[in-house]
């Protein structure tokens, strides 16, 4: 009969030897497993065979296996190139890319967001695509847009996600509003009417979380751009104290003061805004078109539509519509830039780009590609028409430290909304802060 101590000793010894065995095996395996998947140097090549790394966050947002399928097709067309997909969570993607860039281990082809381009380019982390494309005699006229710094292209938008106004038609009708608002006055009236319905329902959702401050581009500055305004001078310097930006901010403040905005604004994240719209707690939100499928899936009975963002009363010009892109660039340290360009060109080719856009529910970065709307939601056609009749507007793309610019604006806006400073004060502060960054 063993004593308790002896049993514990035996158990602990067994535990020790078991884990020691695992450790030994693991350390032995560590050498092998590490190098096969993706080792420290960016890519490998052996006798003509080239392995490229494609770092992105898109795979998780596309239907399972679809992205891998497109990549396999590329490998089939280019038998000497293998592509390793490195998928990372979007929330931490920029942090990881900064870390990778610092250590020189950026993937050969790297997914980019417009907000990071300027700083990566300045760092020398991403390559000048203009010269690469010229060397390959690539026809750049088919690209809907290119993100350039000092005249050189560093990022090509692959898929564009526009942010129209999502409107819950049932709530509108219940509130007694017959038409979708097209001017700011109509919007305020509609939001007020919806909020009056009570029962936790509000008119508008505004996610001002400072961890990811892209609401400034999508939900705040969009009002300015929708009325043809700009936050920059013609030479690209900050100009937030102009009349149009002021009018846009005052408009947002008026909505906040009228209490037609859903509670929790100051730390609300984009995902929360979408959830609230889906469950019918919020009547109108500015949101990415990519969410149409999500909303339909989570609430098939929701009767909603998309519309252009309302403009200032009396404005008849073209309306800017905010957008975010899945962009792509090439690592400056990649030893296989030519092959990397081939992958980029593949993603931008009319056929593949159209497929990718359809899968992602976005608009193609290739002008000649036409997404297949036939099998998808009719709202995509509606949005496409809005897209064609307006112009894509996101002035933060390509700005230095764009995320910091947005965050500064957002922090100042939060102070104004909660009443601790005037709109003028806020804009002056922002102007000063921005000028220091530029």
């Amino acid at each position, binding site marked *: 009969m063993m004593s308790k101590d002896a049993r514990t000793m035996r158990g602990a010894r067994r535990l020790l030897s078991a884990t020691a065995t695992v450790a030994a095996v693991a350390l032995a395996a560590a050498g092998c497993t590490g190098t096969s998947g993706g080792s420290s140097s960016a890519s490998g090549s052996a006798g003509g065979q080239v392995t490229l790394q494609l770092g992105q966050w898109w795979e998780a947002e596309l239907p399972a296996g679809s992205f891998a399928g497109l990549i396999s097709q590329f490998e089939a067309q280019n038998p000497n190139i293998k592509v390793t997909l490195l998928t990372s969570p979007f929330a931490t993607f920029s942090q990881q890319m900064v870390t990778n860039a*610092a250590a020189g281990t950026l993937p050969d082809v790297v997914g980019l967001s417009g907000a990071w381009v300027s*700083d990566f380019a300045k760092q020398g982390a991403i390559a000048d695509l203009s010269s690469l494309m010229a060397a390959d005699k690539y026809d750049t006229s088919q690209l809907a847009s290119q993100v350039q710094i000092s005249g050189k292209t560093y990022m090509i938008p692959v898929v564009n996600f526009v942010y129209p106004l999502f409107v819950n038609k049932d709530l509108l009708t219940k509130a007694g509003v017959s038409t979708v608002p097209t001017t700011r006055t109509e919007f305020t009236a509609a939001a007020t009417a919806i909020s009056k319905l009570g029962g936790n329902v509000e008119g508008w959702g505004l996610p001002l979380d*400072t961890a990811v401050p892209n609401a400034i581009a999508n939900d705040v500055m969009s009002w300015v751009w929708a009325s043809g305004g700009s936050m920059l001078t013609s030479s690209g310097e900050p100009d937030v104290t102009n009349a149009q930006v002021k009018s846009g901010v005052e408009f947002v403040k008026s909505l906040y003061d009228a209490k037609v905005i859903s509670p929790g604004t*100051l730390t609300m994240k984009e995902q929360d805004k979408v959830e609230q719209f889906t469950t019918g707690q919020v009547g109108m939100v500015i949101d990415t078109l990519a969410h149409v499928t999500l909303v339909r899936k989570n609430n098939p009975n929701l009767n909603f539509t998309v519309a252009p963002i309302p403009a200032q009363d009396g404005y008849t010009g073209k309306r800017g519509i905010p957008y975010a892109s899945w962009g792509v660039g090439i690592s400056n340290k990649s030893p296989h830039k030519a092959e990397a360009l081939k992958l980029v060109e593949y993603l931008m080719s009319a056929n593949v780009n159209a497929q990718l856009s359809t899968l992602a529910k976005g608009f193609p970065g290739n002008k000649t590609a036409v997404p297949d709307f036939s099998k998808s939601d009719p709202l995509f056609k509606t949005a496409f028409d809005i897209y064609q009749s307006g112009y894509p507007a996101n002035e933060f793309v390509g700005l230095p430290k764009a995320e910091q610019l947005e*965050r500064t604006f957002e922090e100042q806006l*939060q102070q104004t909304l909660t009443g601790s400073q005037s709109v003028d004060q806020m804009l002056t502060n922002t102007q000063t802060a921005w000028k220091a960054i530029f």
Partner: protein
Amino acid sequence: MKVTPNDPGSAAQLNPTLTRPISGSRGILPPRIARKLPPYAFIAPTVILIVVLMIVPILMVITYSVMDNVVVQPSSQFAGLHNYVQVLTDPDFQAALRNTLVFIVASTAIHLVIGLTFAILLNTPMLGAATKAFFRVIYILPWLFTVAVIAVLWRLLLSPYGVANYLLTSLGLVRSGVDWLASPTTALGAVVVINIWAGYPFFMISLLAGLQAVPSELYEAAKVDGASALQRFWNITLPQLRPIIVSMAVLDLIWTSQQFALIWMTTGGGPLNVTEVLSTFTYKQAFSNYEFSTASASAVIVLFLSMILGYFYVRQQRAQD
């Protein structure tokens, strides 16, 4: 716990390999060195690991902090203490410092109170072992989950239309849903509550262990002397637990000051910077401003402050030995 080993001498008798000397006339090393060698040899693996994987990166961070244009630009240059001045005079840093102090002191204090309370409840002689084991398992649940999930889960629970508000309004404790994480007045408190939930199990277990180690004779003697439960707690339990409480408190202050993910994923440092702590400040400097010099300076300041706490911890340890 009492240890009753077998006769120690017999171990050597049973196994001759135990008697192989390392020093002496048949040993490899001269006796003086061989006598001094063992402790250094034993701490060697740890020291090597910590030197390579901790001291080196820390030195790199300190180097970054006294230079400009590090990491993101090819041409770095020596900048003296200018980054430190910049950080210390930054009102955001000062706000972060204040918030961090509030955060860590509140968290630690309440961790101890809750940990002690639960430990006392779990140590009671009045309930059976099975009941106690059952509750013990429930009480350590928060310890099982990774920080990212805890942050996301509590965002769900504390959202304006979430479960917390639903329960509180149904019970009549608040009139209407409160914006726990988004209102400047409640955000810091809410974040403290989440951190308390996530971290109390460790305290509870350590204190429970401590409670079980208090000799029962002390309590019995006190009962004979007519001491009440409260007096027994105050005069026996607390003094006996004092060493653990102090150790845990210092360690918790240090660990909590590093908390990043929890705050970043719930409030991002907002609203209006009320939950901005030193770790979120450092993160924003590094990964949003791309200012690694100031981020490193900020990190070194945090390191310095924590080292002060660490020094007190070691001093207190040695005072007890």
